[in-house]
């Protein structure tokens, strides 16, 4: 079982203007764990997309609703290759059936890319509904 070391816990509101601040927080954390620049960008993108989805879909664009994010360093199977786990919790609406399947990229449409970016950027992307909360767990390990 992976050991988890909580590094940072953020509580923010569902306001698009917080996205730049969260992006600024996650990249240095990922770098400190040992991720290279490209992976730091990928992790930043995944987190940005996840929060965007919470704001747009879970909270329907409403501002001022709570979002919690926990950043933890986790040990993988190989102790030399740690990972970053991001747990995102919100109290918004449950995703509609099929919403988490995502849409195939490459077609000229203006939506549906966020989930694709998350799955391409991270090793694990898992959503769970627990009571009235959504919990999204994303993990990426150093290769």
């Amino acid at each position: 079982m992976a050991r988890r070391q909580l590094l940072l816990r953020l509580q923010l509101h569902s306001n698009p203007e917080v996205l730049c601040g969260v992006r600024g927080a996650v990249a240095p954390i990922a770098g400190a764990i040992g991720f290279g620049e490209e992976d730091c960008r990928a992790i930043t993108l995944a987190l940005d997309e996840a929060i965007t989805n919470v704001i747009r879909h879970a909270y329907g664009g409403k501002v001022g609703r709570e979002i919690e994010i926990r950043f933890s360093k986790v040990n993988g199977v190989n102790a030399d290759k740690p990972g970053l786990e991001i747990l995102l919790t919100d109290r918004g609406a449950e995703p509609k059936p099929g919403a988490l399947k995502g849409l195939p990229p490459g077609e000229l449409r203006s939506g549906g890319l966020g989930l694709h970016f998350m799955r391409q950027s991270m090793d694990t992307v898992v959503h769970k509904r627990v009571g009235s909360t959504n919990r999204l767990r994303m993990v990426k390990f150093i290769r």
Partner: protein
Amino acid sequence: MQITARRLENITIFDVTGDIDLANSPAVRKALLTELREKKIPRVIMNLQGVKYIDSSGIASLVEGLKASRDLQARFILFGLSKSAREVLQLSRLLKLFEIYENEEQALAGESA
């Protein structure tokens, strides 16, 4: 994010600086669609040299611009993509659908499709 427009004959160049995310992608979308659909500018160029970060909402705004340009038989051109912006467009598998140049000189000189 800041977006300013320069107009040269039948060309509009949007100079964009900052990050394009959910907070400000609507402004990018509005600027593009106004120029293409309302003002009927035949060539709209986006200078993205100052854009260090773009997410799926930003890409969606660019896609809307591209679709509008195709509907109106106008040209929609990007130049100055950062590594990050290029990676995101690549990830979306939309990179090849856009007309992209390295710099403004190339974007202005780019031959008609």
